[in-house]
């Protein structure tokens, strides 16, 4: 165990405010479980408070993502848990996210903005997006359903994501 290099509590609190949600998203992507993802993030912040005293501020985010990654892999190994995937489980994290009224408000605004962007998508891109996100088909299944190569399905998804994320085609 390396010697402790405590970080001051106010900085820990500020980091928690700024990065917690995104770290939980990341941990969830690895663990596919809301509770385990929360555990991984909690472990990362404990480590931040105890050992990140000499981490420069610019490197704290990257440091936290790396620690969460290691924590998530450790927890996954302990749990021996590889649950099957469904995009419905993406919404597990919504429950915790909505416990914070400000976060809920921000999410509602983002969802509304996203809806407006989705209306501007070309039909073929929207079709792939809907089949993947709403109907939970894999890209292989989408390609088969639309009788297109899987590369084309992925390309349409990429273009749709580019438009939704950056507002450009």
């Amino acid at each position, binding site marked *: 165990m390396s010697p402790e290099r405590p970080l001051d509590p106010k900085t820990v609190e500020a980091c928690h405010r700024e990065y917690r949600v995104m770290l939980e998203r990341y941990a969830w992507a690895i663990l596919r479980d809301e509770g385990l993802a929360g555990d991984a993030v909690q472990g990362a912040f404990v480590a931040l408070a105890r050992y990140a005293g000499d981490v420069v501020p610019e490197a704290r985010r990257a440091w936290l993502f790396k620690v969460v990654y290691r924590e998530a*892999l450790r927890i996954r190994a302990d749990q021996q848990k590889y649950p099957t995937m469904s995009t419905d489980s993406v919404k597990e994290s919504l429950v915790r996210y909505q416990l914070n009224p400000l976060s809920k408000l921000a999410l509602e605004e983002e969802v509304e903005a996203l809806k407006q962007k989705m209306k501007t998508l070309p039909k073929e891109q929207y079709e792939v997006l809907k089949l993947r996100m709403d109907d939970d088909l894999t890209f292989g299944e989408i390609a088969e359903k639309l009788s297109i190569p899987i590369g084309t399905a992925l390309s349409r998804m990429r273009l749709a994501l580019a438009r939704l994320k950056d507002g450009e085609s």
Partner: protein
Amino acid sequence: MTYDDNFETNPRFLEAMLYALNDPALDREAFEREMADDPELAFSVASAVQLALEMKESFEPSALRRGYSEPIRSELPSGNPQPAGWVLTAILCASAVLAWIAWNRFFYSEEIHPSDRDLVTAWSMFRAESGAAGVLETELSPASYLEDSESSLVENDEDFPSWLIAATATESSNGAIQ
């Protein structure tokens, strides 16, 4: 939430989304090995999960979000709201009829046709305020009216000049002589 990684400068975002969606088109283990040494790729995964969450919400609001409106909506009457309007109209009409009856009763029974009781009450109040009950009683009683009438007759007699009375008497007496 802001995304500080730009899709155009991060072409691996599609892979991050595939990882977030656990799509079999991506080699998951290989991608995880890359993530271990690339915090930006890790952050792209977090952004992809966030975007996936928002897209799921766009397509199908979660039960938690629906819960804000649906319980209220289910408590509202599902039928035509017209009956409630008719009830309100009936209440207003009934109120108008009652007001009209009360209005007529007030004017016809109390002002145009005051009852004896009301007259006695008004008279008593007038007496108490004026303090001239005795005079008024005398003036308004039938006996006083008769007295006044007699006195006025006497007074009328006295209005004849005495010389006229005397002349009349003289003339009568002269006529009698003649």
